[in-house]
């Protein structure tokens, strides 16, 4: 019976995702963006961007290979994963299916936990599929440029795994945002706005007022840290700390959501 185990609710969440078409569109978007990113990264690796900027690492370096195969996947996919998570929660309010969801499970925080678990798995699935895309697109472009495909590059496979993990955690962050902000449009716009505008500005502003130490705790930088263990160029957190910080953002938002929003009247 459903009273003790979270498994039935998680199964229900998978069925909710798979029985509408949104996830398909988001997955296609993630794969296409990731492949473009990988192709561009592979095409321009090692080239001098001009204007006195230093050249990016060449295709003979592990950094470049990791960037083409793993980082491209993350930067092409995480926003779609975030939206998948947000809509996983806000869609219930938008279409009022939250009524039957809470009738099936009147203990509302369990619903949020089940959503997090299901979406974490979906996010990882997105990451793996998009990774297949970046490997394909990246390998084609690298092959055309006549360089070694670099599948044996140092720390490539662990980095890929961490990139998948990072995407999965961003999906969970999406659930957190959706739990706190029930309105779908507002939640998505706010998330994109914060990620693409506020965070970069904040990064710049904090650095300008000598609060650099704060910068690495911002969500996007935390996820970069997760994927770039031993990165010495930038002052990132340890990779595992970065992962925990990102997870913490998701859990914090969801916790706030449970406390402030989910318990509210549903009418």
């Amino acid at each position, binding site marked *: *019976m*459903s009273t003790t185990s979270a498994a*039935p609710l998680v*199964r*229900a969440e998978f*069925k909710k995702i798979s*029985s509408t078409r949104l996830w398909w569109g988001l997955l296609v978007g993630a794969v296409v963006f990731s492949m473009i990113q990988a192709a561009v990264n592979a095409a321009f690796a090692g080239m001098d961007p001009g204007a006195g900027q230093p050249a990016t690492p060449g295709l003979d370096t592990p950094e470049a290979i990791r960037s083409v195969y793993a980082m491209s996947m993350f930067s092409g996919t995480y926003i779609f994963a975030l939206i998948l998570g947000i809509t996983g929660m806000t869609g219930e309010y938008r279409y009022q*299916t939250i009524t039957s969801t809470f*009738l099936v499970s*009147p203990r509302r925080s369990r619903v949020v936990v089940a959503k997090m678990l299901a979406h974490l798995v979906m996010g990882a699935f997105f990451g793996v599929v998009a990774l297949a895309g970046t490997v394909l697109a990246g390998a084609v472009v690298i092959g055309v440029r006549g360089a070694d495909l670099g599948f044996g590059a140092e720390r490539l496979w662990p980095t890929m795994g961490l990139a998948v993990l990072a995407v999965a955690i961003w999906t969970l962050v999406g659930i957190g945002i959706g739990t706190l902000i029930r309105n779908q449009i507002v939640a998505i716009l706010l998330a994109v706005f914060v990620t693409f505008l506020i965070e970069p500005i904040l990064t710049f502003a904090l650095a300008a007022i000598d609060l650099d130490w704060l910068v690495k705790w911002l969500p996007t930088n935390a996820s970069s840290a997760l994927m770039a263990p031993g990165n010495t160029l930038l002052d990132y957190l340890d990779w595992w700390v970065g992962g925990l910080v990102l997870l913490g953002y998701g859990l914090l938002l969801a916790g706030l959501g449970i406390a402030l929003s989910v318990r509210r009247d549903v009418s």
Partner: protein
Amino acid sequence: MTREGLRIDVVGLTKMFGAFKAVDDLSFSVQPGVVTGFLGPNGAGKTTTLRCLLGLLAPTAGSATIGGHRYRDLPDPIGTVGAALEASSFHPGRTARAHLEVMALGAGIDPRRAGEMLAQVGLTEVADKRVGGYSLGMRQRLGLAAALLGDPPVLILDEPANGLDPAGIAWLREFLRALAREGRTVLISSHVLSEVQRTVDEVVVLARGRLVRQGRLADLDSGPRDVLVRTPEPAKLRDALAAASLTVTEDGSGRLRVGGGTTERVGHAAYVAGVELHELVAEASHLERTFLELTEGDRTP
């Protein structure tokens, strides 16, 4: 088959939305084995009461319980209470079958039961079509299928007849009466008395968030009825009826309306006075009028 129903108890329920009192110190109970109509005009607080009962709204004061438990404390919620609220709460891109399968999976019910329920409400042919293309009547049927999914002893349906055609209402009536005969508790709300008049046994009448009347439907209609009488000698009959201390008014259609008596008394008075009668009837039931009178005023029971 019998399915022992549970009592629904609403005790001193009050629900405020800001400064607006949607439900005001409401108390009533609903018994198993009969169909109970939860009646009142739009905005009377019916849906708010049902949502409090189902744990979707938090009551401001008082309680609403099913078999003595709050909804959220039920160990097997949809196996205890089947509820259908407004017919719009489906994802338009999801099929009817998938909607029921989602609920079944979450409640640990065999998802194959989804197909059985859809057959029971007559939606088999459209089971794999997206709900976005459904008519209101089809959504009502899907809501009913969802309510029945857990084979619950208690059914709570908000305006289930809304959007159904007359054939659908007749079907719903038989369906609900059969469920009540099995011993289940069936509570249905409506703002149109005539929709449920032949379905319900008991009524709870609500107006402006307050209880107006609770009892058997038949008792709503138990007030004294006027007698209508037609005669070629109205003046003579008036005198005779006045002598029998009955009140007489002009009906407007050539008939006299007699208050305070039965057809027997009126007929006897006419016979004694030797007045010829062409028509003598008790006024037809005016249940709907009684309902309107009850719900128009702000009366207390």
